[in-house]
């Protein structure tokens, strides 16, 4: 039970999901589902990880069909098979789907490759393993660059021709908290959070019907306050409830309102402030305010580069986005107590710095927030005589998010020291190879890293290994908090064989959590 005296903290189980924009240079009619499968397989196959080409066969012959989250197939995992798939194959067969050594899931979701990060415990860890996903996407692009059909990937959210695809966040929330309270507490926060972490976008309207620039890449695609859908009539607060954990104790809040964040300071603030606001809601200390029309407010804020628009409240008053954010910051600072942990203190300080900067001179945050960094770049080109509807500015908007370090404009700005970096290359490279130790991802990723050919199936909450005698051993991962490095000791790295790995971890897991 979370009581009012418990300090709020940014620490909780969290994770991110990136759906990448995908295209073949010069070939707009290339099949994006096939290319997405090629992207996943190009990365997974050389690691010895089995792709999901035989997914359906395996499921139909196996008692593991309920593990349908993501299964790795037995056979035919060579690179050639997927990279040379016939163009006319039914889309349903493009099902590349793997668990990576870092505990992430890399798969085809609709018409995009998606990286779902492993579960982590802090915003800093979230940045590291999200960024590892960007590196994995970049490695996929490189692996396909020598083929006859090279593919480009973009960490963005729209083609500005009407299509949008998501960058999602997940947070574990106490089941004791009423969902209506979660929705009420989050709506004003989510309608205004974009000023801290929007990706920026050239064009106003879903198909960029009007020329100009806006703060959020996703705002124009949202229509509802609360709902289950993620692709139609998108809601600010999504009600999908697959906890991938003990459903009596936890819910997984699936956040679909966010933009694809590249700047690390903005991502720290995005994940950290959201976790703190959830802590405020869980402990009954959330500011009580209600926007008259949250969806309209979301779009008003996104379209208002002066950050001065007044948002009508249900009770008749009005507040600006920055004033609303201040109310949440004040409440979080109060609830974090006298001596917050280091991760929480950092987020509170950055939240304050961002709001002060946005209140005085937004351009002072060009090294911290994507929408500001991108705007500064675009204003530079506008000063050279380009209008907002110039194709070159639209190109800059898209190419900002190219995952290749030598092509992506974000990467160029960051490596030139114009965007602040919180992680190091060494940290990110390590997170490509290894899972976080703070959650069950340690075991999931460890299985894929140490014994890739013996992993018969895996999902968020289980791993199935095939022993030497052909017997399948299931390691349940019922909660994200179990089977961490601390809980399992050195088993993941010390087990000499897959049999030992499976038997010892299954026994530990069987002792309950």
């Amino acid at each position, binding site marked *: 039970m979370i009581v009012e005296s418990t300090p709020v903290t940014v620490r909780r189980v969290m994770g991110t999901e990136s*759906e990448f924009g995908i295209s073949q240079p010069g070939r707009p009619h290339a099949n994006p589902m096939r290319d997405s499968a090629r992207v996943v397989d190009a990365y997974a196959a050389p690691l010895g990880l089995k792709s999901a080409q035989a997914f359906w066969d395996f499921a139909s012959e196996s008692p593991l069909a309920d593990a349908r989250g993501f299964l790795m197939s037995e056979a035919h995992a060579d690179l050639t098979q997927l990279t040379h798939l016939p163009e006319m194959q039914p889309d349903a067969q493009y099902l590349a789907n793997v668990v990576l050594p870092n505990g992430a899931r890399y798969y085809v979701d*609709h018409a*995009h490759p998606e990286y779902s990060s492993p579960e982590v415990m802090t915003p800093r860890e979230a940045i590291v393993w999200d960024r590892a996903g960007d590196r994995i996407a970049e490695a996929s692009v490189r692996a396909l660059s020598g083929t006859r059909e090279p593919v480009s990937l973009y960490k963005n959210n*729209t083609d500005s021709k009407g299509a949008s*695809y998501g960058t999602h966040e997940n947070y574990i929330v106490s089941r004791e908290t009423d969902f209506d309270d979660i929705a009420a507490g989050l709506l004003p926060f989510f309608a205004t959070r974009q000023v801290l972490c929007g990706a920026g976008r050239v064009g106003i309207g879903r198909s960029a019907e009007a020329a100009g620039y806006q703060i959020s890449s996703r705002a124009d695609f949202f229509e509802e306050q609360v709902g289950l859908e993620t692709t139609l009539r998108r809601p600010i607060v999504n009600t999908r409830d697959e906890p991938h954990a003990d459903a009596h104790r936890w819910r997984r809040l699936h956040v679909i309102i966010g933009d694809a964040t590249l700047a690390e300071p903005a991502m720290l603030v995005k994940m950290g402030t959201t976790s703190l606001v959830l802590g405020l809601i869980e402990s009954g200390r959330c500011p009580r305010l209600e926007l008259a029309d949250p969806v309209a407010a979301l779009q008003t804020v996104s379209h208002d*580069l002066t950050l001065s628009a007044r948002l009508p409240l249900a009770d008749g008053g009005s507040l600006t986005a920055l004033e609303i954010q201040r109310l949440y910051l004040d409440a979080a600072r109060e609830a974090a107590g006298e001596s917050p942990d280091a991760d929480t203190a950092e987020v509170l300080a950055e939240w304050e710095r961002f709001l002060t900067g946005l209140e005085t001179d937004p*351009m002072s945050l060009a090294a911290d927030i994507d929408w500001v960094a991108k705007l500064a*770049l675009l204003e530079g080109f506008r000063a050279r005589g380009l209008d907002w509807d110039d194709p070159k500015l639209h190109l800059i908007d898209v190419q900002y998010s190219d995952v290749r370090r030598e092509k992506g404009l974000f990467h160029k700005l960051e490596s030139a020291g114009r965007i602040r970096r919180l992680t190091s290359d060494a940290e990110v490279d390590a997170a490509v190879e290894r899972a976080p130790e703070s959650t069950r991802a340690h075991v999931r990723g460890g299985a894929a890293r140490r014994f890739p050919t013996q992993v018969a199936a895996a999902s968020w909450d289980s791993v199935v290994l095939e022993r030497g005698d052909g017997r399948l051993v299931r390691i349940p991962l019922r909660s994200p908090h179990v089977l961490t490095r601390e809980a399992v000791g050195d088993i993941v790295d010390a087990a000499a064989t897959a049999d030992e790995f499976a038997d010892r971890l299954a026994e530990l897991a069987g002792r309950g959590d």
Partner: protein
Amino acid sequence: MSGSGQTSKDRSERPDLPEDEGPLAPQAQTQVETSAVDSILDDIDAVLESNAEEFVRNFVQKGGQ
């Protein structure tokens, strides 16, 4: 800063408010920051895809989540 990218003409249209007077207004600060970025614009220009119009036209995605 300007709303939705539409440049405010207030200053130049109001004779009682000369452009070179008063403390640094947000608009002027924006200019300072932009000039700081200016030195990298050529580097950016060098890596931009060559045919912007064609690139933008061809960047077509299917919807996702």
